[in-house]
């Protein structure tokens, strides 16, 4: 049952009946190695302080010694659930800087892969957050269907998770001859499976009681905290980069940006479920119309960007992913910054979890869909 207690004025000193609990770094509900230092009074959360850095790998420093095609391969070790979007962001940034126009075929292939990746990511989010809320069946259902998408990935680019498929100038190989057939088969199958997901959790009264009205994030706060992706859209913040700054094949297609109104945990859940339907619509619009042509343009052996700063934003499965490259005209970048969606999303947690019970904190964390290496980089 969702319960909310009045917010307290938090002071730095810990009161006599408050105590501190460390959730993490090794805890199943933190989805990785995040540490939440929570201040509790009984079950009620007074303050949550996220401590990160347990998987910090210094990717931004490493990129300064690498060439641009090499950077692409590091990016899918950050947010491994939206690996292709991360690859694409760097590739688009390099292509825009060099003013290279990629073939239409590449745009279509990249967009289809984006949406397949989004589906796979949302499926994994569905089963992991179901498990956080105590529904173990969700874990088996979600990962069963996810394997079908991974098979499609494997057929074309040989990898299941870290695809490394986009390269500056196009994609690494042409699609597999069976690609269109297997994508269509998957979508027909998954359209029948998705109502099962709703039946299992979304319509479940216990699940609804645990999420409805819990952890409300208002639209103003979502904008102020820079919360993007399905989490921000559930609060009514229209932040879909695919809609506002379209890239690849997104200008050619019709799709809805799913906006929520309540901004509570249930709405964040619902927006992601709706996005899965929308992703399938997008793929269906593109899959039959992939134009003939090359799968890549010929790039120079050593790619050197002109001097200047370049920023590219794409919509990853978690929100707005940005790449900011400062180039001094050499083959290595001067500075690369990755704007990761999870970083901004995570730090709202103190703002919205105050006053809720610790079990609600898990529900809020589950619907935020955090990937920790994406936050830590």
């Amino acid at each position, binding site marked *: 049952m969702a319960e909310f207690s009045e917010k307290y004025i938090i002071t730095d000193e810990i009161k006599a009946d408050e105590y501190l609990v460390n959730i993490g*770094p090794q*805890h199943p509900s933190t989805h990785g*190695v995040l540490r939440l230092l929570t201040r509790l009074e009984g079950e009620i959360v007074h303050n949550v302080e996220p401590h990160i850095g347990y*998987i910090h*790998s210094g990717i931004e420093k*490493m990129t300064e010694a690498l060439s641009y095609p090499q950077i692409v391969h590091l990016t899918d070790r950050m947010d491994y659930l939206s690996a292709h979007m991360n690859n694409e962001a760097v590739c688009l940034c390099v292509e825009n800087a060099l003013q290279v126009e990629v073939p239409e075929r590449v745009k279509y292939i990249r967009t289809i892969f984006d949406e397949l990746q989004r589906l796979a990511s949302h499926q994994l989010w569905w089963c992991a957050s179901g498990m956080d809320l105590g529904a173990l069946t969700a874990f088996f259902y979600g*990962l*069963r269907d996810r394997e079908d998408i991974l098979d499609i990935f494997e057929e074309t680019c040989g990898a299941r998770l870290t695809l490394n498929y986009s390269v500056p100038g196009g994609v690494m190989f042409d699609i597999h001859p069976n690609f269109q057939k297997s994508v269509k088969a998957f979508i027909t199958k998954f359209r029948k499976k998705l109502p099962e997901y709703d039946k299992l959790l979304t319509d479940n009264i216990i699940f609804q009681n645990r999420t409805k009205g819990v952890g409300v994030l208002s639209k103003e706060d979502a904008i102020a905290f820079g919360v993007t992706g399905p989490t921000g859209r559930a609060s009514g913040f229209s932040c879909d980069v695919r809609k506002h700054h379209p890239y690849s094949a997104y200008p050619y297609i019709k799709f809805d940006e799913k906006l929520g109104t309540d901004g509570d945990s249930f709405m964040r859940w619902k927006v992601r479920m709706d996005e899965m339907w929308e992703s399938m619509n997008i793929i269906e619009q593109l899959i039959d119309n992939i134009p003939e042509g090359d799968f890549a343009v010929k790039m120079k052996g050593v790619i050197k960007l002109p001097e200047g700063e370049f920023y590219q934003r794409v919509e990853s499965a978690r929100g707005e992913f940005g790449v900011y490259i400062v180039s001094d005209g050499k083959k290595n970048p001067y500075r690369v910054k990755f704007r990761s969606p999870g970083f901004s999303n995570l730090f709202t947690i103190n703002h919205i979890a105050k006053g809720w019970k610790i079990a609600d904190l898990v529900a809020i964390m589950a619907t935020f869909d955090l990937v920790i290496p994406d936050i830590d980089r």
Partner: protein
Amino acid sequence: MGITSKKEFEKNDFPVLDSYEGGSIILTQLDALVNWARSNSVWPLTFGTRCCAIEFMAVGASRHDMARFGYEVARATPRQADMIIISGSINYKMAPVLKRLYDQIADPKYVIAMGACAVSGGPFYYNSYSIVKGADHVIPVDIYVPGCPPRPEALLYAFLQLQKKIKREKNFKKQLKK
């Protein structure tokens, strides 16, 4: 192999068995029994740091199903677990935590280093300031699984290798030799 001195006789746990003809055969059979039980109920700890954790989840789920080999469920606390699968990179801030988790697991305990990051630092070997160059700098590792990330089949193969390793252990003989 028999008992040679009186001192050694008193120290051993099963002195009577081994001092008779054929006693060591019984010990070997006892070893085999214990190892059979141990090797078929190794429960891993839910410990995932990077991309390999997703493949570890895939191994636990429907298609690959690690429960077939006795790796029944992943436990959330180290006190109930028998092994750690280090799925992902370990950095200098995380290393003391990993050591502590390892110390909390009851003996006998096993470690699988899954993926290039845990084996050697992998893609973060050069120029990264915060990644430990291999998890075996922190805790002893039994099985190394290369790959970035390894396929679920590779992890299943590592499970089978670990079972073989457990089956070769000589628990009682070891006690006699001490």
